[in-house]
């Protein structure tokens, strides 16, 4: 499970540096703080952009590549900004045997992206997760931190429709305001 999603992703390099600087100052300059720092920065920015990684490397006085190596080793860290909604398909043993791969196929088909990618409109990001421990409700998809039970292609369409309606409502509201 990734850290809580940031409301709006930060993409301005200057702001990234500033935000990262604020986080790292809470830690001592020890290598063993690297992973907790990365977790906290990702919690704030939603992802780990290059500017943040170099900032952290400079603070801990370690080569940039060491930070990049750790970031790419662990599944939790992401290099691209997350979407507004996170879709994580459980592929634990029970979910897989009960059709988790069919659900993943459906998500891939509908969103047009592969796992660990974000849709071009930044609405959704797709990922798989090894097991969320809700094996009795297999196959499970965790949608925005909420595990959805028995997700099959029809349910995928239903969930997407709900998001689409929500988006339309949001846009309508915006239109009325302006």
């Amino acid at each position: 499970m990734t850290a809580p999603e940031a409301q709006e992703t930060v993409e301005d390099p200057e702001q990234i540096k500033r935000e990262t600087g604020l986080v790292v100052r809470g830690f001592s300059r020890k290598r063993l703080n690297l992973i907790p720092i990365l977790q906290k920065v990702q919690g704030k920015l939603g992802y780990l952009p290059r500017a943040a990684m170099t900032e952290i490397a400079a603070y801990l006085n370690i080569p940039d590549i060491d930070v990049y190596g750790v970031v790419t080793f662990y599944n939790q860290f992401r290099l691209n900004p997350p979407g507004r909604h996170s879709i994580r398909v459980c592929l634990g043993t029970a979910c897989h045997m009960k059709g988790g791969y069919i659900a993943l196929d459906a998500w891939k088909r509908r969103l047009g992206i592969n796992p660990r990618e974000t849709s071009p409109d930044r609405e959704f990001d797709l990922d798989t997760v090894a097991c969320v421990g809700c094996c009795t409700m297999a196959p499970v998809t965790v949608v925005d931190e909420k595990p959805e039970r028995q997700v099959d292609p029809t349910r995928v369409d239903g969930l997407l429709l709900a998001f689409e309606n929500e988006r339309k409502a949001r846009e309508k509201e915006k239109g009325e305001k302006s």
Partner: protein
Amino acid sequence: MKKAEPAAVAAAFNEIKKKAGARWGNLWQDRPVILVGAATCGRAAGAIEVLDTFKAEIKNRNLDVPVIEVGCMGHCYAEPLVIIGKPGQPPVCYNHVNPVIAERLVKEYLLGDNPSPEFVLAALEPSEALPSFQDFPRAQYERKIILKNCGHIDPTRIEHYIAGGGYAALVKALQMSPEEIIEEVKKSGLRGRGGAGFPTGNKWQLCRNARGRPRYMVCNADEGDPGAFMDRAILESDPHSVIEGMIIAARAIGSRYGYIYVRAEYPLAVERLDIALRQARRKKLLGNRILGSDFSFDISLFQGSGAFVCGEETALIASLEGRAGMPHHRPPYPAIQGLHGKPTLVNNVKTLASVRHIINNGADWFAGIGANGSSGTAVFALAGKVVNTGLVEVPMGTTLRQIIFDVGSGIPKGKKFKAVQIGGPSGGCLPESALDLPVDFDSLRGAGAMMGSGGMVVLDEDDCMVEIARYFLEFTQKESCGKCTFCRLGTKQMLEVLTEFTRGEGKIEDLDNLYKLAGEIQAGSLCGLGRTAPNPVLTTLRYFRDEYRAHIELGRCPALMCMHLIAYYILPHKCERSCDACVGSCSVEAISPNKKRIKVIDQEKCVKCGKCLEACPFQYNAVVKLTPPSEVPAR
């Protein structure tokens, strides 16, 4: 280290215990209580809505009934679960509770006197009017020791744990010398519950005797096996039992500082551990001079970042040091040279949760449970095609058949048992003929599987054994850290071969290549991930060779699971002209009626999700799966 002043420690604890007991000791006696199971599994089933409904109802009606959020009761098949206790009556456990039922329970059972048997799973104690857990067949085999508190105490209140006898073992241990503690654990025969089964007492001794200071105590809560959730349930439901075990272990090895390495994928466990640690510090059960003795110990939480290999102890230590979690060669063992090069004791959650029971009840009591050189109980996460999914705790030596058919109530929908996958990606698939094997550390090895950390997935006739082998290999291949060539490249090769099999593109000589590769990966890998990665393949090859041959030689998947080897087909003579159920169910619009209004699947468009088969009304039953796909008649 000299012994702490026993009298002062005991007095300090008695003070705490008295206070806790006054509030929590007679919870059931003087007023009704509602417990709502709200671990991750319960929450996913809607426990939070149920909890809110109870709270609102109690408030609106001005009742004096505490509503307590507890952990996992183990009966995951019946979530959300609620226990309602009324003075003078046995507490009753309700299953599949939703907000509507919750409202009714308040009205009819709390205010009225009708226990609403239609929603009852069972009473916790024998009762005349209702079935009780003691009547269930599983009661004959189950023995809850580690899981005893789970689902019955409030994990966010240390007082509740203490009132139930918690931290008494710590007080006892503080009055023992470290050597006495180690001796007791050795005598109990406790073995590491992470899967390897190394004698815990010996590990402690090794670490205590090692040169170098400081020494570190690490709890390994990086439970990564897909299909295993025992550690998560314990951490979410009874975090103090693990913390108490850690403090006792730290005293035994002479450590002042410890870490709990917990998966970041378990946010609720992290939250509850954090609360538990702070409460323990406030009660002086953790930190400087514990309970006024001369022993000091503190614990930090460290969140793992999603790498399966970090469950291996040397990789876990690398991760704690802020590096990529790659294992290194052993020896030196972490007990001699671990975190920052210092002696480090790494123990699994369930190992540590067992410690307090050994200290409380004595080594002989613990050694008397279980069999065949494995003492104590085994905790399993039972999942897959079994009726009673959930957590199971049985004495070591219980047979697989007893666990699956008596505790788990067998296979649902009258299907036939095919295999049980035990031990996750490191374990194997055992067929019906192995069901009478006792579950302990050593017996399963001979059959090619291992007990592992406790994942148990039951497979029925609809599950393809080639596919499950491929699934586990895909997992280990993805999670291989890449350090050892044979593990990095060998698993990739094996996966390719298996993927070809599931697509019907395999060659029969590849079966021999699989054996060869498996042997080389086992021999050429440093850590348990690589050494055990071929197990799922080897066991399925050993017990289900026919299925492999069907895939390779006939291009058939006998279990009708492998997507590339099956096709969905609507039998024209069974299809009902007036029914359109399948057309609407298809999410890719692959089904359309022909001139005679008989529905036909466009095989080019079909994604083989199986929705049409589910949608077809049972009285027609017109949709079938065919293997190989060439069985579908040409139009």
